[in-house]
């Protein structure tokens, strides 16, 4: 199996897991879904520079070929933003749960999960 096939499969699995979880109605699933999706995007961005092994990551006069450094910079930025966002969504989800008493995304508890208060 080639490296490309492995990476592409990983991106595909992560993305489908992420989208499946995003479409569920609970905030915790949603947070996990967003995390999966951002992993997929990070690997995808990384792969966009081409999958090259054993090459210097920045230009070196002695080397004939070098890996593209830009996707790595992009991934770094994307990771930072995704981290911050995941933290924000977690806090928001917790606060909404405390305020509305349900972890449904739309804030309306359905019959099976309604508190017996």
């Amino acid at each position: 199996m080639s490296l490309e096939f492995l990476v592409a499969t990983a991106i595909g699995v992560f993305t489908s897991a992420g989208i499946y979880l995003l479409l569920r109605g609970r905030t915790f699933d949603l947070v996990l879904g967003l995390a999966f999706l951002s992993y997929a995007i990070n690997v995808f961005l990384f792969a966009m520079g081409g999958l090259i092994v054993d090459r210097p990551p920045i230009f070196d006069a002695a080397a004939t070929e070098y890996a593209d450094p830009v996707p790595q910079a992009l991934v770094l930025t994307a990771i930072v933003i995704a981290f911050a966002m995941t933290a924000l969504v977690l806090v928001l989800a917790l606060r909404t749960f405390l305020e509305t008493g349900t972890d449904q995304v739309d804030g309306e508890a359905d019959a099976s999960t309604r508190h017996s208060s």
Partner: protein
Amino acid sequence: MNHLLIAPLTLPALVASLILLVMRRRHLRLARLVSLGACMTWVVLGAALTARASSGDIATYALGNWAAPFGILLVLDRLSAMMVLLTAILSLAVLAYATSSDLDRRGWHFHPLFHFQILGLNGAFLTGDLFNLFVFFEMLLIASYGLMLHGQGAARLKGGVQYVVINLAGSTLFLVAVGILYGVTGTLNMADMAIRVAGAPPADQGLMRAGALLLIAVFALKAALVPLHFWLPRTYASTSAPVAALFAIMTKVGAYSIIRTTILIFGADAGESAWAPAAWMLPAALLTLALGFIGVLAARNLRDLAAFAVVGSMGTLLSATSVFQPAAITAALYYTLHSTLAGAALFLTVDLIARRRGDYGDALTPSPRFPQIELLSVFFFLSAIALVGLPPLSGFLGKLMILNGVRESASAPWIWACILSTTVLALLGFARAGSLLFWESAAVGTDIHAKVPPHPILTLVGAAAPLAGLIALTVFAGPVTTYLTAATEQLFDSAAYVTAVLGPR
């Protein structure tokens, strides 16, 4: 290099940090003064940039002096300068209203978030490369999450979760689009990308189209284009009025990005991916238009009415945009200015009314007479006229320009039919709301003694400012359209943009 160009990014960051670190809640009075003063400075700065850009040359600013296409670049042309000025004017009115109605007392970080939001907006308008567009989008979104939730309450949190999650999903899609376009063209600079897309081999066209469509889909999500509009009514209706008024410019960021990237990167020279989004954007825009104004007709309370009016005016704007012809784009730009101010005016007016009606709030039911009913009826009447697009205000001029601008297009009959028929719908919706609120309420005998905001005069001035802007836009329609025609010419002359960014080649 002219350092004026970086000021709209560095100064808001400094002001926001200053207020965040030094003033906080203990020095609210000082924070308000600094914040208002800063907003006035942004207006002056925006005017200076617009004056600079109106000469017609495209100014660039390379951060850290790293040359394009590798370095981060800010680009100032007529369109971006105008958007920066519009942001500044809107933010001054909104901040005046928010301060005088004590919204900034109801949480901790209103002023810093407000200036970070302006920083993100200015950055999105000025940036010259796609990845920084993403970064500035994130910046304005993070600030907008904070502002949207400001003041809290269960309803706001319910709307907030959806707003945040939808925008996070949008951000991941944005990264996919940027990744695909980088993979195909090997660059992130928009001018450089325009050249590479034009010269791309046929084998890459499919991927490029996919990237273009994904990118425009993300912008359409921000611009609340059907079927990606569903987050807007709930978000705008559940947040506080000044924040909703400020968000009137957030949908315009989506429209701006669509106009900018499509014309520059996927314009006439782009081969098979030329005008990739136009084909499906038009039906979606017409649907948005219909759905927005049907929503106005169906709304049960004033906030929903205002939110759906924003959706409807975005539909008008995008149906003119999706033709991608110079005359239509000029009209769309004029309508952008108009609908931003009109949306803000309506949200602030609705808030003024809701505060004076006590327990009746913003529900569309007859209530007893409330204080200042006469003055507020004038405000409501003016903003309704503006949003419906009746003469004499700028909404009428804008719609007329759009109808005239799309005449060359093959789908002109559709656009004409949709715009004219939805104008009737909007008129009906606003007439129903107005007669319920003012005539039927005026007929009910007893007065309400509701609590009026602490500085009634200042709040009235804040709400009147966008209306004054609309009147100015109508009176000075001549000079404004001249400027906008020049801006459109500059937009369509992508060769000049590329030369300004990458140097002569």
